[in-house]
């Protein structure tokens, strides 16, 4: 069973969003997603300062098996990106909710987080995909 931390909200496309204490939203992909992708070899991140709308493509995660677009769960402007992933893309597999984070967004409207899936609803999405 993949790990699903309670403080994260999710998109059905397997991205997670976490509201931090400083009001920023951290974004990454879930444990379920990294397991399905296999070994990650390249990550394309957005630029800091970039404006992104909720649901818009914000980057690409590429494994040996396939390339997958990353969609932003919320609208806002990118304040930082995880440059460590350039040399160590395997962090996405090893620690998808921690050191494998992709980027941080200053959200236009934290209310958008309420529209995302909570842990249980996301678990259901994963269960459906397996059958």
């Amino acid at each position, binding site marked *: 069973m993949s790990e699903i931390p309670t403080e994260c909200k999710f998109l059905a496309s397997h991205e997670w969003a976490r509201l931090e204490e400083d009001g920023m939203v951290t974004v990454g992909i879930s444990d379920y997603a990294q*397991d399905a992708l*296999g*070994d990650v*070899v*390249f990550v*394309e991140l957005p630029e800091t300062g970039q404006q992104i709308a909720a649901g818009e493509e914000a980057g*690409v995660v*590429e494994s*040996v*098996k396939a*390339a997958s677009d990353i969609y932003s769960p919320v609208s806002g402007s990118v304040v930082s990106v995880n440059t460590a992933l350039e040399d160590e893309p*395997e962090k996405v*597999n090893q620690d998808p909710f921690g050191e494998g984070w992709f980027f941080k967004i200053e959200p236009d409207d934290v209310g958008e987080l309420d529209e995302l899936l909570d842990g249980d609803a996301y678990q259901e999405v994963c269960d459906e995909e397996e059958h």
Partner: protein
Amino acid sequence: MTTPQNAGPARTPLYDQHVAAGGKMVDFSGWSLPVNYGSQIEEHMAVRRAAGMFDVSHMTIIDVQGADAESFLRHVVANDVAKLDEWGALYGALLNATGGVLDDLIVYFLPTGYRCVVNAATRDKVLAWFAEHAQPGMTFEQRELVMIAVQGPAAIGKLNEVRPGLVPAELKPFQAVQQAQWLVGRTGYTGEDGVEIMLPPTEGVSLWQDLLANGVAPAGLGARDTLRLEAGLNLYGQDLDENTSPLASNIGWTIAWQPEERNFIGRAALEAERGKSPMKLTGLVLADKGILRHGQIVTTTAGDGIITSGTYSPTMACSIALARLPRAASGDCQVEIRGKQKLARIVKPPFVRNGKVLVELK
């Protein structure tokens, strides 16, 4: 082989071992096999540096025996089995009448006759082809055996530790030896030293477990694909198919033109192309970040081509591919990846052999 009650992929006798080792099971040509056991990159590097093992029991083993066995195989295989000494093996292709590739295979010449190892996905097609072209004084029979490939610089050492004397020091590459009911061939699909062993199912399970206990890493389909591509080896269905000529697939060397009187199936069609195939299968190294993949279009100074197999090379830490390009293509080229043109270099495969990178990265 056990087949589940309801329609689902078939299982090899090693299925439980894969699950116990954390194998991520996928459906591969109707077989449930592990794509990895956690990290295909780690499994790949284990084979390059030490030893890894693959369950290849899904492959199709066909024993061909009888007085006409040699004549039959000299007719259907484009390489010449008459070249073989007893216990020798060769790699070659089965061609159709228009010179397209039906399958690639390894043929072993044994005291009891010949053993052919063909692909899993082509099993029914090849058996039907054999039936169509069978000669009166021969039989052919598909065998249900476990097949384990143990590959890597330490592979033979690890095997001899768990089964002393199994792999004699004098066993040469492309040579086989019979040990009780086991056939051990110094062959493989990784570009490393090692053997492929065909053995009865119950003994296969215990060999797997003993190798695991002795530090041999289970390796899945993902690692198998990155290893063989680094080694410049073709995969039927990607680099070879019924519409491609062996002369445009980097396996022209497996066509035994001599003796001229040997009329193997497809010969006439190939003669027309001999020495002047417009396309060749060659290698690419991507200069940028990204992954080369099957179907991407390649633009060269000599014209366009297409990638047949692409992947990430763990040994080289960049993307590599096999591509069918115009014969004169060389130097730099452009590959269209997800709508963008990326720079790649044309290189002659293999990319890696015996753990060493053979191509220039810059």
